């Protein structure tokens, strides 16, 4: 039962990826053709498809790598932060909230 569900999820995932890849390819084709025209050059269709696939994989790979780098950097910072410093920051954030809700009554 679980295998069937994960198989279905995998198929849906692949379908979503294909759809996004096609849309991405269309955008890349416009950009590549515009650039080739600017350089007064022709560019063969397989090369356009190749550049598009390369850019698509680059998007996914770079994003994954960047996200994991940022996450580990964030975790490192949190691990280095002293617990008392964390409490001080929390307290100052609460004070800021409280001060904005204070009603100032002028002296008469």
């Amino acid at each position: 039962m679980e295998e069937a569900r994960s198989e279905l999820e995998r198929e849906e995932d692949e379908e979503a990826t294909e759809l996004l890849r096609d849309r991405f390819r269309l955008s890349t084709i416009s950009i590549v053709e515009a650039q080739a025209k600017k350089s007064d050059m022709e560019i063969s269709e397989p090369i356009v498809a190749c550049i598009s696939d390369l850019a698509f994989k680059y998007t996914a790979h770079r994003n994954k790598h960047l996200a994991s780098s940022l996450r580990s950097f964030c975790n490192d910072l949190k691990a280095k932060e002293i617990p008392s410093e964390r409490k001080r920051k929390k307290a100052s954030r609460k004070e800021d909230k409280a001060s904005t809700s204070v009603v100032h009554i002028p002296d008469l």
Partner: protein
Amino acid sequence: MDNANTRFDPDLIHAIFKLVWSRTALEREKNEGADPLECEVGAATSKKNRPTSANANALKLSCELLRVFVIEAVERAATIAEAEGVNKIEATHLERILPQLLLDF
């Protein structure tokens, strides 16, 4: 001259990012599920498991980076083709510029 057709749509790029993030999150869940000791951390991991997001400026910048990547690939291959005296970019021209392009980006 830049126009709307020569840029990537931020919504499309955002959709691709979300696909990658959801896959990564699933992989992370599977790995954490395999090690029961990790699950005991409880509240401390809830922030770590927050879904990744990107603001509008990050998406615009990503679109621009990808646009530059594609344009660089074309321009560098075109330079090689021009040096060979041909006016059509072929696979061999792209092959020659790929290693440095991937290193540069």
